[in-house]
């Protein structure tokens, strides 16, 4: 692979880490509980994108399963937390 390609992937990973730091700031600071849940929702999506970029970087399809699992569990956990905020319990 050309060195520019490697640089582009490294830059993309750096940008994703920066984005995750922004979401982490909102997760730690967020005035209300729903802000924290929203930040966590954002973070799992950025983590999933980082997994895909890592898969391209190491030319391996193994990272794809990790990304799919993050997407799956992130969706379920966000819905569960939203339900908790709405009702005070997850399963009624």
């Amino acid at each position: 692979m050309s060195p520019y390609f490697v640089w582009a992937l490294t830059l993309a990973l750096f940008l994703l880490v920066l984005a995750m730091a922004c979401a982490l700031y909102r997760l730690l600071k967020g005035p209300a509980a729903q802000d924290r849940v929203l930040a966590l929702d954002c973070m799992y999506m950025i983590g999933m994108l980082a997994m895909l970029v890592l898969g391209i970087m190491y030319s391996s399809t193994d990272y794809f399963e990790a990304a799919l699992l993050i997407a799956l569990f992130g969706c379920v956990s966000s819905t569960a937390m939203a339900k908790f905020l709405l009702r005070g319990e997850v399963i009624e």
Partner: protein
Amino acid sequence: MTEGIIPLWAQAVVGVLVVAGAFIALLGALGLVRLQSYFERVHSPSIIATLGCWFIMHATILFFSMLEQRLTLHGLLIAMFIAVTVPITTIFLMRAALFRARRNGQNVPPAVSRVVSSEPAAHDDAEHGGNRY
């Protein structure tokens, strides 16, 4: 970096797509930091789920199709899954936030269903008159 080499033009396209997707992700996360109220903030991560996710998904599809010399569409699975689930999650979160704001007595639009509010909905609509935040 392993043994597989893809053509230079594909490297260029994949690189541009990946950097663009990561930049869009940064943009969405910055919106999460900079916007003022929760009801504005809930909009900003959706650009990650749409444009950012689709950029990187296209990069993944192009890269692995070039690497393995066949059409590999597994990236599409993630993008489809995200496109289906993220609106549901966002609507759930939005409803939870509205419910909590209403319960705390903040100035948000009244409930459409009559379960939450004790007053009749028609009276509520006449009094508050639509979308006041």
